[in-house]
Each structure stands twice: as structure tokens, then as C-alpha cells.
């Protein structure tokens, strides 16, 4: 069956079963490999994308559930204000190690900051505890989110 989905501002027609998770449409059909596979059960957050600006786990988001929602992935998150600040903060605070989970971490963090510009530690825990990092970069992720939050204080 054919579905039209809006990814990073462009409309794509894809011919897959309706229960196909968005993750595989992005990675294997559209070739956008920045979004990662980690668990397939929404347990690790590596596959996080935004649906209309809200963080969603693409590994359990079936293609027939998306309808007109705007999908944003790591490839385009830098075009949003929060996304660009988060990416810069990740570089400033030297967050990454292996880097595999970081697409998902950045997507969760930028969704957090766009809805809550000045998150507390507990807000950060709530938004980020669904994202696993096996390299253990959590301390730097927390610092980077705070840094990105501060860097927005002059804006908007």
C-alpha cells in the first residue's frame, strides 16, 4: 500500500504494509540512516524522531498512524532553533563517544527544549531517561542540555 509522508519538509511516497514501523521506512526505504535501530520496542530511544515537534519512537510508530504529521529527523533538526542549539552544545561539551545513540539523544533533548526552554534536572531526567547510552555519556548530555538552554536565554 502507498503512503505519503512528510519528512523534513519533503513529501515521499512509500509502498509498504501499513504496520511497517517508520524507522525502517526512513532507514531502508528512504535511505536516511541518521535515525538508528537499537531495540525495536521503544526501550532505548535510538530511533527518536519528531512528529509535529514531539519526540516519538519511530521503531513502534507504524506508517499508517502518521497521516499528515510532519516528521523531523536528525538530518534536519539543525534547521530548528532548539535543534541547532542542542547540536552546538553537544560539540561544546564534547558529549559523543561511539555516537550511535546520539541522534536519538539529540532528538529527545531538542524536543524537550522546544517545549520547555529552562528544564530542571528532574525535567531532564523525565525527558531523557528513555534514551540509553551504552558509552555512558549521561553526565555530559545533562550539561549540554543546560548549556543549550542558557544559550537560548538571549533569543526569542
Amino acid at each position, binding site marked *: 500500500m502507498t503512503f505519503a509522508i512528510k519528512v523534513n519538509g519533503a513529501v515521499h511516497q512509500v509502498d509498504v504494509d501499513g504496520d*511497517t514501523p517508520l*524507522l525502517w521506512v526512513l532507514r531502508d526505504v528512504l535511505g536516511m540512516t541518521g535515525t538508528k535501530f537499537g*531495540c525495536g520496542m521503544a526501550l532505548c530511544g535510538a530511533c527518536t524522531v519528531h512528529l509535529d515537534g514531539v519526540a516519538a519512537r519511530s521503531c513502534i510508530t507504524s506508517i499508517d498512524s502518521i497521516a499528515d504529521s510532519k516528521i523531523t529527523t536528525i538530518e534536519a533538526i539543525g534547521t530548528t532553533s532548539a535543534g541547532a542549539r542542542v547540536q552546538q552544545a553537544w560539540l561544546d561539551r564534547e558529549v559523543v*563517544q561511539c555516537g*550511535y545513540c546520539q*541522534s536519538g539523544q539529540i532528538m529527545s533533548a531538542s524536543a524537550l527544549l522546544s517545549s520547555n526552554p529552562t528544564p530542571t534536572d528532574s525535567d531532564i531526567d523525565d525527558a531523557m531517561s528513555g534514551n540509553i547510552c551504552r558509552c*555512558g555519556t549521561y553526565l555530559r548530555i545533562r550539561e549540554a542540555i543546560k548549556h543549550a538552554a542558557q544559550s537560548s536565554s538571549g533569543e526569542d
Partner: protein
Amino acid sequence: MMIQDRKTSPVPCAGGSPSANGLSRRGFLQTVAATGGGLLLSVSLPLRRGAAAPAGTVEFAPSAFVRIGNDGQIVLTMPYVEMGQGTYTSISMLIAEELEVNLAQVRLEPAPPNKKLFGNPFLAGEQATGGSTAMRATWTSMREAGATARTMLVSAAAKRWNVDPASCLARNGEVVHASSGRSVGYGEIAADAALIPMPDSVALKQPKDFRLIGLQAKRLDAPAKVNGTAVFGIDARPPGVKVATLAQSPVFGGRLKSVNATAASAVNGVRQIVQLDDAVAVVADHMGAARKGLAALAIEWNDGPNAKLSTQDIVDDLARAMLGSGEVAQNIGDCDTAMAGAVTRVDATYQLPFLAHATMEPMNCTVHVREDSCEVWIGSQVAERTQAAAARVTGLPLDKVVVHNHLLGGGFGRRLEVDGVTRAVQIARHVQGLVKVVWTREEDIQHDMYRPSWCDRLSAGLDGKGTPIAWTHHFAGSSVIARFLPVAFNKGFDPDSTNGAIDLVYDFANLRVEYSRVEPPGIPTAFWRSVGPSHTVFVVESFVDELAAAVQQDPVVFRRVLLDKAPRAKAVLDLVARKSGWGRQLPPRAGRGVSLQFVFGTYMAQVAEVDVASDGTVRVRRVVCAVDCGTVINPDTVEAQIQGAIMFGVTAALYGEISIKDGRVQQANFDSYRILRMNEAPAVEVHIVSSQEPPGGIGEPGTSAIVPAIGNAIFAATGKRLRKMPIDTNALRQPT
């Protein structure tokens, strides 16, 4: 994994006579004109720190290459892979420091598979990245390579200008003649430099003159990892590739009995079902269809001889092995006599579980098998073994197998193994065209190769002053080395399994350590972050704590008096005590625990602070770490590696367990094999001791040190000694 001995290895090593033009007397550098212009340096990584080269016996065998192109770009080809540990950046810093270029001018290329060229001198010549060895193997040679190239570039420029080389200096990728105001870029002079005879010796910079080493450098791999453009093995998409996922026999050693593929074949996008002796794969247009197809398969298995195997059977085997004696790994003094005279005697048994790696990037491998060749796309710690595995399965000669190595989404030892390559090539042989085999998380956890399970028995005798006068330690478990690197397994002595159990920092007059190799039936074992010490340091440092408690001494004071012959160990212990506020009062059911170790060439002490809730739940609140890893190359990487290694160890202490029932792994995904999350992460403080000793390893020590620190902190908080990991919260529940 510290293997610094390869007596019987035939792999070429450093040294050799000046048999070729341009080969230096030092024997590990060679310079030639680069293809396409410029200067090419070949570097042979030394056998080991300070080892004398066997004169005139071995041919020059480079293991790294530095190319200075006509465009001034410096390309470094290295055998080490980037899996998060920052090696790309740190090795580039060594070259850039002496070559007098900016880090941005160095580009790193992963080496193609070739054990002869790219063998790791610390891993018996294996082309492998592991065991916290990369910086130790490159520290001197890469700086000498940079200094040699710099000297030749300066000489070439001086010759062109007809001035004294001593009046020129190298700076920012240029040679400058200050008095005449002339300068020339490295790219422009590189071809001339290739014609200059290589100097016999070059002076290395003094640490006070370092402008990169020891200062924080930005990771070169970071920008691509924050915008989705970094390409990991799983991201390889050669044109036309299909995607497959698989089910392997759930029981170790089982076989496929039958498959009904009718429903699976009907799934939209499924192209093929591949049956192997012990696995089934579904090949499809995308992973969504492959997974749906896999779920639709009706598979029957012959479970085979391990059908009833359980964790308890394995523990029983290990315990039985300890009833006898083991191979003696170290014997100092006379333990039996000393023990007979002890005033206090302490005995304990310890037990550790199998652990999975659970790299965030699940196992995967992309393969194209053709009649006369094979191509492999993967992220691997062992490019050469990958090539060999593909050659073995296809029957092709090595030179017909091409390996494209990629970034690794976590290694931790898992990607030192090639079982996933073998499996993918087995499947690909049945597939027309290219196929990417991606394991589900469940397959990844249930068909990992596991950190061995261990049992330990320890006894110690102490005199009337509370000083240990006898220490015996016998342990049993799988030897990964015996399978992975048989040449390094010598009459029961295993340099990995015993690392951290022998050559202790403590000055024990009488010590005996025995090891019994016991392989679990059917269950594959492998290296895991911090390898042998992940077991030995937990046991040794917990038991030292037990001894302190038995003679009612403070754990830091008790350790300290045993360190007169280990000043660097004493220094990190003192530092961690000071920085952690050791001895300061904590609330009820909170506690501090200390650990001390010397493994991977690095001294480390940690203090963990824990809270134990009334239901027994343990929260690791804060960890203070003092480290002396010799000369620090990139301090930010040292801190990052220790932070991450601590999270890895806290995960193991709180949750890490792979258990077996009916021959099957009981854990399957991140709900049953839990990984520490953001809301559980302790604060970590890292304090680095300034040192000019050669660098030690830093990727792994943090993991082995944290687990006993947590156990000791729980003892301080509750009086309960945990001799088994992971933490049993039931044992810590407060009686109501």
C-alpha cells in the same frame, strides 16, 4: 587484556638491520616519495615499551603510514578503529605535536585488513583494537614519525633556500626562515623532503614544550555524530542491498529441525527464506518486512545436548573445579606456613555472572558474495579476522575478500569477534546480490559471546597487628585467551584471566594465586570492557575490604600501609581519599567504599557513595576517581572514558546478569537486560595525577574499579557483604 609477550608469534616486529635504503638505524621508520607526490612515512609499531629489537633478524614491517600530500593534507593510516574511545583524535595529536601542524590538518583513515602491516604489538601482532592498548602502542613511535618528517621537511626547505637548517623552524604546517622572512608550506616541499636521507636520530619535544599533548583537544569525529551523517556498519547501503534478519537456535548448540515458511513468504517485501544448519534468515526489501516475516515463521529446533543446561549447572562445575588445585599463576613466599601462624583468618567465596555487551548498534554485517570474490561492509575491531572469516566460509583466497570497515556503534570487546561475519557470509552465499544481515536486539543479547562467569575462593591470614601475612586465591572460569589467542595461553597461565589477581599493588609477603580453566558447555565467552580485571579487581578489592573489617581498621588506612613499594598507587589512594571527603559522616544507610587497582598500565582509585533504600534498592550517588595513567594525551578523553567506564560498571553491579535456563538465555531486550539510564547516573569527579611516565590504558580501568567500590560502600552503609554480582536487593532489604 595485556599481552606483551609474543615469543612464539611469527608476526614481524620492530627492529631489523638497515637492509633497505632509507631505513633508519632505529629500524621502525621508513620514508619514500608518496604515490602521486609528497612524502610517505611508514611506521612499525614497536614490540612493546622499551623492548630491545632483535638485531638483524626481522624485515621492516610498517604498521602505520603518514602521508604528507602536495596539498599539505596529512593522512594517517592506522590499524586502530574508533569505537567511541577517542583514538582517532589522540593518535592524530601525537603526530601533529611533533610535526608542528594543527590537529585539523590531520585526516585519519582506517587501515585495510592486513595483519602483517597493521598488527597490534600489544596483542601478539593481531590487527585488533582492544585491551586499552592503542596509546601505549603508539606513544613513542608516532611522535618519532612526526619528528622525523618535520626534520626532513625543514632540511628540504633549507636546501631550497640554501640556508642552514638550524636557522629554520617548523610551525603550523610551514617551514619558516625567520631572518629572511621566507616560508614554505609542507605540501609544497613534501616531494623534496622525500629525497632527503632520513636522519638517524631526532630529538623529541620536552613535555614543557607540548602544545597539543596534555591539552584538551576537540574530538575529530564529533561533528558527524551530531548531525546524522556518521556512517556506522549498520548504515552501509551499497546499491541494491537487501535486508535480512535471523533466528538462531535458542539453545546453544541446537539445530534447525523444520521450518514452515508459507506465511512468512507471503509477507509483502519478503524475498527469500534462507535455512542453515542452526539458523533461519528472512531476506526482504527492508528490515520491517524481514522482521514481520521472521515472526511469521513456524520453526522447530532440535535442542541438542544443552537442552537442560542452567546457570546452576555452570556454577556447580566451577565450584567443583575449586575442590582441587589449579595452575599456579603466582606464588610468593610460603602461604601455608604463614597461614598456620595467623592470628585472624578470613575465608570467602565469590561469584560473578555471564554478561552481555549490548552495544547500542546491534550486530550486523553486509555481504556480497560473487563467484570469484566477496565484499564485506562492517564496523569491526578486527578487520583482518573479518577478512579471514569471510574467506573461510566462501573458500576464497584472502586477497579476493574486500573489507570496508566503518565506525563502530560500541565495541567493548563484542566487535573483536567475527561470529557475526561468519553468519552473514553463510546467509549471503544463498542470496543473489547484496544482503545486510541485521540482528534484532533479542538475537544480539541471546547470541552474544559473554563475559565469563567466575567462582573464586580466597583465604587470608593476618597477624596480631592486623597485617595480612598470607593470601591465597583460587578461581575458576573460561579462558577467552585460550580460544582467541592460543599462542598466549601457556600451560594454564592466562595473562587476561589472571590480570588483576596477580602482581597486586599490595606488598604481600606470602601469596598464592591459582587458576582453573573451566569452559561452560556450549556457551561462547569473549572479552568485555575491562576483561579479566572486571572479575579479579572486584574479588580482590572486596576481599581486601573484608580483611580491613575483620581487624576493625579503616579501609583506606588498611590499604595504605601495604603500599610502601607502590608509591604511584599510594598517591592515587591518598588523592581519592582527600577529594572524596573520606571519613566524613554520612546519613544512615548511606556509605562510602574504596577500591584501588593497577591494570592496563594505569593506577586508579575510586570512592563510591551509595544510598541503600529500605526496600534494598541501591542508588550510586557520587563517584570520585583518582587516576595516574602516565602522560595524558587528551585530558578530556581521559575524563570521558572514566565517566563512561564507570556507568558501564554501575550497570553491571546493579543489573548485569545473563542467566541460562533450559539451555537458553533468559534475557532478551533492554527490559530484561537493563542498562543504567540518565536518572540513575551518579555524579563523577575525575582527578588526574600529573605524570611524565609513559601512557597507560584508559578505556577500561574505570569499569573494573567501580564494582568493588560499590560493594564496599554497601557494606559501609548496611554491614552486608555482597560476594555475588549483580547486587541482590532482597539481601539489603531493611527488616520491618
